């Protein structure tokens, strides 16, 4: 990966799935898109560094997640002082079924949410997640297990009214 042409291919191949993964983690599609775009801008500026990375998509995802965390802190300040200022409307309409899933994900611990998203939407195995997050594989498995159990409960609760 030595020039922007290679990065262009990575961008075309991975942009949408990275946005989906970050959307599942942060619950805001506009924030997710901003974070992924910022991560690609960083990747373009650091393409020589990226050339030495074994998994460029994982690198971009990590940068995007860091941007997201920074953005959250900024957003907290902005919301505190500018609560009355409306934000831009999201260009993409998210369906109610997706909102329900993201709402359930938001109720997980942040660590569990990240693991379950990387596994089920990033299609990473527990060993790959272990490497990407720098945590033991056993920790990945236990977080995944707890996240699935909690998610199942939350999504069943959502459906309960239909059974009455």
């Amino acid at each position, binding site marked *: 990966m030595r020039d922007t042409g290679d990065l262009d291919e990575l961008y075309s191949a991975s942009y949408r799935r990275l946005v989906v993964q970050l959307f599942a983690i942060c619950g805001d599609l506009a924030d997710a898109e901003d974070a992924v775009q910022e991560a690609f801008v*960083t990747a373009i500026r650091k393409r020589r560094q990226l050339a030495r990375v074994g998994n460029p998509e994982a690198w971009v995802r990590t940068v995007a997640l860091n941007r997201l965390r920074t953005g959250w802190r900024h957003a907290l300040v902005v919301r505190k002082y500018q609560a009355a200022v409306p934000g831009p409307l999201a260009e993409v309409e998210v369906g109610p079924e997706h909102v329900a899933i993201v709402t359930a994900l938001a109720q997980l611990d942040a660590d569990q949410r990240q693991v379950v998203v990387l596994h089920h*939407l990033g299609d990473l195995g527990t060993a790959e997640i272990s490497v990407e997050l720098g945590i033991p594989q056993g920790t990945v498995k236990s977080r995944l297990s707890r996240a699935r159990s909690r998610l199942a409960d939350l*999504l069943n609760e959502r459906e309960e009214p239909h059974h009455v």
Partner: protein
Amino acid sequence: MSDLDQLRSVGNEVRPPSFDSLVTTARRRTRRTAAGVVAAFITVVMLIGGGMRIAGDIDRSAPGPANRPTSPSQVTTTPKPTTPTYSPGMGAIFELPQEIGPAILRQGRYAVRVTPTLSYEVYTPDQVKAVNGSFLNTRSASGSGWAGIFFVSTASAEGTILPAHPCRDHTGRVVGPTVSDLAGALRRQPLLDVSKPQVINVDGYQGLWVDVRIPIEVDASTCVNDIVRLFSSGQDSWGWVEGFMGRWWILDVDGERVVVNAQCDTDCSKSDWRTLQAMLESVDFIPDE
């Protein structure tokens, strides 16, 4: 988890901006950094041309390598300088000039050079003092002067040295080349209180975070050279006195081991630490093209 799979369809609704637009943004940011260098150079030339000298006003709380010489005559004969103020402007990045004494930074993002081949960007709050283009001195949240200190130093793979005893015996021993080697060696140091290393990922770089403290009970005035030595690398040797609290992120940046150091003394408030933590988390390394 078929419910989660449904989210994949959201991706079909997303319209990525053109890749070329991102390339343009990246190039614009790089040009802004370069423009910052030119602006800084012009500022220095104007100040020097106006007969003002920029030197010698280093705050007592500003750190420096322990072996950097400062002769008393330099301190007594240098006239009080007018401290320059830098402001990066909205969305721009200002590259700090090095070795020109203190400068006041307005809120914004700055590029700081660590080595000839490595710089980093950091976001600073308003009224931070930069010393020699390397050390960033934050104001106390209580308004009583300077509080935290932020800087990035190298800890070379071949030549990073820890003292046999931080207070009594500064005889050096070389630590191993990796991030883990340094974190582990620090943790084994006598006298110092060093937390268990935690894995971190900063801007895509893996590393370890340790909190390093010099207990308040230590009396640095009884130590060799009146200082508790922390570590040395190359020409620089870092030390402090009792009450030191350092939040250190030890990272491998493209094969170069660096220590991102945010430090305060025991009387720093939570607000002071929040300022430093925000600076830590805003760091973005820029290896040279």
